[in-house]
């Protein structure tokens, strides 16, 4: 059981890393700051590549979130309860998935959404991203786990 939890954590960590990297790749910063000039990292400056990677890692995150959620709902975690920081991260991830999902819809052909709604959506998604990074950093440093 313990090793399974570890595997989940590693997969979650990997997805979080890829999704954050590709997410920041949506802004034109990697080329400006030479990060895309580092050998092997040129793809970080290629917007279509980071776009696809972001979608693919989002699919991974959604899969993992739904799996872990329902696994917990139907089986529980051996009588353990979700911690406060666990709830906070769950709320933020839910926000990321919902705002991100809406952005995916927005990008489909034939979708013309209200300009202000698109800006609010973009900023909301970025806000959730920053919140998750900060809370994750906090839980990592102070060793707060999801369940106790």
């Amino acid at each position: 059981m313990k090793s399974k939890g570890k595997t989940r954590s590693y997969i979650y960590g990997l997805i979080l890393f890829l999704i954050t990297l590709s997410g920041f790749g949506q802004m034109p910063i990697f080329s400006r700051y030479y990060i895309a000039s580092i050998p092997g990292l040129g793809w970080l400056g290629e917007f279509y590549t980071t776009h696809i990677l972001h979608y693919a890692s989002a699919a991974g995150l959604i899969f993992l979130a739904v799996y872990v959620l329902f696994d917990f709902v139907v089986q529980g975690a051996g009588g353990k309860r979700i911690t406060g920081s666990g709830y906070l991260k769950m709320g933020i991830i839910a926000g990321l998935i919902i705002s991100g999902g809406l952005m995916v819809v927005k990008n489909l052909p034939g979708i013309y959404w209200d300009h202000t709604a698109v800006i609010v959506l973009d900023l909301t998604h970025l806000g959730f991203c920053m919140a998750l990074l900060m809370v994750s950093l906090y839980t990592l440093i102070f060793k707060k786990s999801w369940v106790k």
Partner: protein
Amino acid sequence: MRSQISRRAFIKGSIAAAGTVVAGTGIAKAADALVNGKKEPLATLLDIQKCIGCEECVRACRDVNAAKYPEPEKPFPKMYPKTVPVQDWSDKREVMDRLTPYNWLYIQHAFVSLNGRETELTIPRRCMHCANPPCVKLCPWGAAKQEKNGLSRIDADLCLGGSKCKAVCPWSIPERQTGVGLYLELMPALAGNGVMYKCDRCYNRLEKGETPACIEACPENVQTIGPRREILEQAHTLAKEINGYVYGEHENGGTHTIYVSPVPFDQLNAAIEKGKGKPHLDRVENMMADGTNLSRAMLIAPLAGLAAAFGKFYLKSKEK
């Protein structure tokens, strides 16, 4: 029991959180826009053989849109790292033979052989107004916009000049002017680099029921504007009549700019001068197709997660 309650509380909490997010993103407005957006988009037909290269359209575009042109403040704030390019067209406003922040339309020349005779064809070039414009869809924060009539523009009040729209545009259309726009108010040294400019399809004229300036000014009626389906029909009828060729119908998954030429577009593309500010006439695959396909596949992710969780539960309860 404890875990039961906490799970229920957690589900409630998540739903409430999700509700807040949905309300916050203006989904109601977006859904409304979605319904209203079902209108047939506008497109233009450009009959290349009619164009005489007089540049009346170019001058009309410059006149009508002069008020939208950048007035940069100098000296420009220093940008870091030092390799960030300063792009300044404010002293070269007169340039008319390519796209610049001060010239959103120009005439391309092609010397080609037509019916055995050496002929010069002139082609008005500007933004193609893609049906699913990467410049708009991939703009990091909505400064590039697509109107409900399908036409796209970049909001000069919001653009930070990162030039992503140009990088993702298959024709590299938008052009940057440093020293203007919102980035000056934020962190000009570290982020942003001015504003991107391109043909905005005279959106403010269209809103008033007027015709885009370049269409109105043309003495040869090279351009026709109308609902995309009608424009495509006209384009194909014309192409049949003159034994000609169509460009823009399928490029980048379809655009709202349809050219009809008496010579094949690969010949035209070979004959025109291409490069910075001078777009090609090559075939273009649908740049957004991978993303569109992947987003459909994304719908499977939650179902797969659900199936995996219940599958595991089922196997476990069978073991017991």
